[in-house]
């Protein structure tokens, strides 16, 4: 913890050096720019405008595919008065869609995800299986039907599915025993911040299938290796040490950013508390380089960021 630099305690000179040390910013959204699924966090719009003013490139890397890229852009515009281009928003539905296009995929997909996620794929022309049996399973025969009936597929995708069920995971498992069937994962957080605590995230369910099948998915959400490589690839011209990754999750943002050699900034407006950072041993892979109470704190003397303490208790 001692090595983490707290933004509010940095001298003017240290701040200047900090801002000179990166050209590109990858920034999480939920818990950083806005409260999960809600309004902008005070100060964050100003902070993003400040980064733009300094000439920094900003790309938003979110695991939330509930809102489409377009809806993200509208939210930035409406609530933050910020103009964000399509390529500046990276989320799993889009990265998976792009990946499937890049390999000229034409097969049938079994997709365990939210309706907006599936819509992205359908709009891009991909074919998804019909929803099978949402009925209650009362016998082994029903279970057998739910798992084994239905068409065989060429790809299985797992992201957040509010009604993920054992039968769906078992069907995915059976389909994936065909080694030709693609295995793709989106958001892969083991836990996600929700309300005042954390809830089990899609990563836990992806792991169940991974272990049952004995092969790993291509993971195009955080903290997936494949998304990490994709981001590195997209910005090959910028050395990783000149990239700053900003997020609220130690596992999905900080460790993820560090694995690529990026600098990292943790904000305390989301799922992580100061104590969580203090508990980490000094050389732990989740220790951030920088720490701020809220994103607004990166703006010197930002009047709004004075509200940080009230901001992250909201």
């Amino acid at each position, binding site marked *: 913890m001692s090595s983490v630099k707290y933004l509010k305690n940095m001298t003017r000179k240290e701040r200047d050096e900090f801002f000179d040390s990166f050209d590109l910013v990858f920034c999480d959204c939920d818990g950083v720019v806005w409260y*999960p*699924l809600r309004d902008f966090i005070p100060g964050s719009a100003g902070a993003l405008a400040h980064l733009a003013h300094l000439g920094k490139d900003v790309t938003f890397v979110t695991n939330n595919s*509930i809102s489409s890229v377009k809806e993200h852009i509208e939210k930035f515009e409406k609530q933050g008065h910020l103009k964000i281009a399509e390529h500046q928003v990276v989320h799993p539905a889009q990265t998976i869609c792009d990946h499937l296009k890049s390999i000229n995929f034409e097969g049938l997909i079994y997709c365990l995800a*939210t*309706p907006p996620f599936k819509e992205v794929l359908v709009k891009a022309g991909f074919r998804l299986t019909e929803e099978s049996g*949402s009925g*209650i*399973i*009362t016998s*082994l025969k*029903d*279970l*057998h039907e739910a*798992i084994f009936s239905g068409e065989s597929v060429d790809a299985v995708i797992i992201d957040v*599915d*509010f*009604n*993920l*069920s*054992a*039968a769906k*995971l*078992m069907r995915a*498992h*059976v389909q994936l025993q065909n080694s030709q069937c693609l295995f793709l994962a989106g958001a892969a957080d*083991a*836990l996600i911040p*929700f*309300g005042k*605590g954390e*809830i*089990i995230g899609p990563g*836990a*369910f992806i*792991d*169940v*299938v991974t*272990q*049952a099948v004995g092969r790993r998915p291509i993971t195009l959400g955080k903290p997936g290796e494949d998304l990490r490589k994709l981001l590195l690839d997209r910005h090959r011209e910028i050395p990783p040490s000149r990239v700053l990754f900003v997020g609220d999750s130690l596992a999905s943002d900080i460790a993820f950013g560090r694995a690529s050699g990026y600098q990292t900034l943790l904000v305390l407006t989301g799922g992580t508390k100061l104590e969580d950072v203090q508990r980490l041993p000094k050389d732990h892979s989740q220790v951030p380089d920088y720490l701020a109470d809220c994103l607004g704190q990166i703006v010197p003397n930002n009047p709004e960021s004075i509200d940080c303490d009230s901001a992250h208790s909201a």
Partner: protein
Amino acid sequence: MAKPQHILQLSEEQRSSFVDSFDRVISDIDGVLWTLEHSVPRAADGYAALQRIGKQLTFVTNNSVRTVEQCVKSFAKIGMQVQPEQIWHPAQSIVSYLQSIKFQGLIYIIASQQFKAVLREAGFQLLDGPNEFIEESYESLAKHIFGKEPVRAVIIDVDFNLTSPKLLRAHLYLRHPECLLIEGATDRLLPVAKGVNIIGPGAFASILVEASGKQAITLGKPGRELGDLIVGHLKIDQPGRVLMIGDMLAQDVSFGRQCGFQTLLVLSGGCTREQLLAETDPQLIPDYYADSVADVAQLLGEAPKSRV
């Protein structure tokens, strides 16, 4: 590393010392007496032979979906008379365990109807659900998983209708420091047909263990707590004189070894000869193996060797 011996390849001398080395047999059921598709030929002969030479039989299954009564009937169908008291399954073991610790709190349970019925009959108060698919939004999710009820135990076993909201809800109850995590069947993969495995309840219980950071109290095989319960109940003071028979390395052999029992793996269920011979974890390697329990009858000179 000791290699398991096939019981029909024992020398005359080894054979008689093996037969004399145990007084009690604890046996698994599924994959040993029958599979989902058929009964194991002449399995009943094996148990009849054991009983004839005075060995006591107890059956320990991880399958609570079938009631004890149904189990007794299935035994009768293949000509075996087994008393309900001779059969242990996780629902019943959990009841015994909860009674032993004088548990009185509210329980949140993810399990089959049959399993829940056993706990309700024993007088425990259960919460479950959501039992239908929820509206697909975070608001609706929140409504279904945040419960204020003072739940002090989460129980998880086989539930054909297990969903993510159920696991998320269970995890939130487990945040209470006193809330126990209790699991029944532990199988990560369940064989349902030849070469066909489905994801078992053990995989889902692990999600709760990982997310909550709590150790599970395990009352299915190979649970330590189940071992303690059975050893205590049957007043076993020489565990080395017990023979555990089963078809699964991770459940039966591991359970037997952990309890200090001798172990006999049968290849009539979820483990092939290749898998057995490839196993390197000493905790999962049995003392003996056989093609099926019918070989026990042959060993004891009761019936011709079955060729299935």
